[in-house]
């Protein structure tokens, strides 16, 4: 029983890692751009397909492929900023529709380039850290956990300790006042889109060898990310991380000790309860609703 608890705990840590990478990116984009990026799950998918193309087909070293994947998806983010969100910056619903259009295009491109069925990615490593016979952590999963910790710490440092980060937070809180302070809204928007998309991309790239990569894989990711950012509070990075951990724990333990369908219902109910008790989420403030 102790083994089962420990293994489930490890499973939850892994789940929390990739969910928080996706959710933090989504929060960052919403915070700075004021747009709900419906295509965020497809950015995750694009990261996974970057690994298919670069690692599985061109045989580049895995971490090189991941790095290029991050840049590639980050650039997709820049493209979205320039082509969609900037022209529509006074029209958040327009941004929403544009991101849905973008999602359809990315999915169709994946289908045309790689087929409708799942594609194969050879394992990066088959090594497993064996704690006991029944408590094991595959090294490929450890990479995801480490990446989440490193990247999110770096992001936290960037936002709280650097001038760029200060500018980013300022324009997220009050764009007009930030502009008066001489902060370039365009520049902060670009940075936010690049980082937000890049985080989704690297989550997709790192988990690609561990999940089934298919053109529709973004769907379940975005649903989970929505739940998480609502529970955490839409504008709050800390909230997104805390909620990712909480959601991953609840979902993993309910799946293991009851069943997966119940875990979904519990996850959604949890979110509704949070919304009813504190409509702005755990860490949200009322003014950014």
């Amino acid at each position, binding site marked *: 029983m102790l083994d089962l608890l420990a293994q489930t705990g490890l499973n939850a840590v892994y789940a929390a890692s990739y969910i928080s990478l996706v959710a933090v990116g989504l929060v960052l984009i*919403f915070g700075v751009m004021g747009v*709900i990026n*419906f295509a965020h799950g497809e950015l995750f998918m694009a990261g996974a397909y970057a690994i298919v193309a670069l690692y599985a087909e061109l045989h580049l070293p895995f971490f090189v492929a991941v790095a290029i994947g991050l840049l590639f998806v980050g650039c997709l983010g820049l493209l979205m900023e320039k*082509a*969609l969100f900037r*022209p*529509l910056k*006074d*029209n*958040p*619903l*327009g941004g*929403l*529709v*544009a991101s*849905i*259009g*973008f*999602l*359809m*295009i990315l*999915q*169709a*491109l994946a*289908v*045309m380039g790689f087929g409708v069925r799942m594609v194969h990615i050879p394992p990066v490593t088959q090594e497993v850290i064996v704690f006991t016979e029944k408590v094991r952590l595959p090294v490929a999963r450890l990479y995801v956990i480490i990446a989440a910790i490193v990247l999110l710490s770096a992001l936290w440092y960037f936002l709280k300790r650097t001038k760029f980060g200060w500018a980013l937070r300022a324009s997220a809180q009050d764009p007009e006042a930030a502009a008066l302070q001489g902060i370039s809204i365009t520049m902060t928007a670009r940075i936010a889109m690049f980082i937000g998309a890049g985080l989704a991309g690297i989550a997709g790239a790192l988990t690609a060898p561990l999940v089934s990569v298919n053109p529709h894989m973004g769907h379940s990711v975005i*649903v989970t990310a*929505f*739940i998480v950012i*609502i529970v955490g509070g*839409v504008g709050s990075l800390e909230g997104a991380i805390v909620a990712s951990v909480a959601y991953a724990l609840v979902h993993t333990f309910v799946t293991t000790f009851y069943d997966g*369908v119940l875990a*979904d*219902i519990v996850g*959604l*109910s949890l*979110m*509704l309860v949070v*919304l*009813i008790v504190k*409509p*702005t*989420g755990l860490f949200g403030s009322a003014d950014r*609703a």
Partner: protein
Amino acid sequence: MPKFLIWIAALAALIALPHGLSFSQQEILVFLTINVLLVASYRLLTLTGEWSLGHVVIMGVGAYSSALLTKKLGVYVPISMLLGGVIAALIAVLLSFPLFRMKGFYFLIGSFAAGEIIRLLWKRFRDPFGGAKGIKGIDPMPDFSVGFYQFDFFEPTSYYYFAGIIVAVCLWILWRIEKSPVGLTFHAVHWQDKLAQASGVNVRAYRTLAFAIASGFAGISGALLAHYIGTINPNAFDIDLMVYVLTWAIVGGTATFYGPILGCVVLTVINEIVLRELGLEQMRPLIYGAIMILSILFLPNGLESIVQKFTKRRAAEGAPERRPAE
């Protein structure tokens, strides 16, 4: 007088329409008619400034209710459709208690979560909802004759006339509501939230009212769908269809009554007829997505703004239109 003539001409065109279409286009016309009601009811909700992602699930509530009423209790079909709408409205009132604690983005996602929970309940409780497979063999609308026309509801043309009449009546009611003092208050709730509150308007009550009315008509559209295709399942009311409704409304424009309807008609014709005729199976979503993006970029006020350009010129004295939601 000319206006009267325009209405007559439009009516004649709508009656003649199915006879100029191929069989499969007639089928599409039926679904289009039902979706027109869905998207028009969605607009009423957006009048108060709230955008929901649960509207399609509410449509499903109407569909499931009407289907179960006829199947389990033997209720006569048109009455069950009406009851389906009523039940959808009641569920909406129930949902409004948690949901209207939220606004804006939170309401958007909160409504999505509420809808997902309803869908999971349909999946979870195989009795009576039929689980993931849903309900099939739903009684069709019984055939009848009105003397000069024999309604045979297997035929899309017949069902188009039947659904068309119901949808027309519903649209007329929606239009009357919008132009009534209640409808004007909806506008006020959206634009002058604090002011409306200060002048004694119970904002929450009006929001709930708009939500319930919109949901009721969505429920009727769901019932119309259920009794035509004869089967419903939880996946038919998932976020994919909701995304379509949202894009119809926004691409069409929500400043006018006809904007979302225009969006629905134009986008459906493009997706279901034009792109299919071109034989672009795998590329269809790509082109549809591109059209959505282009239209929102170059027609930020929706397709309705094209129509307005022409009508404004002729009726310059008309009341100022509501500007699109920001």
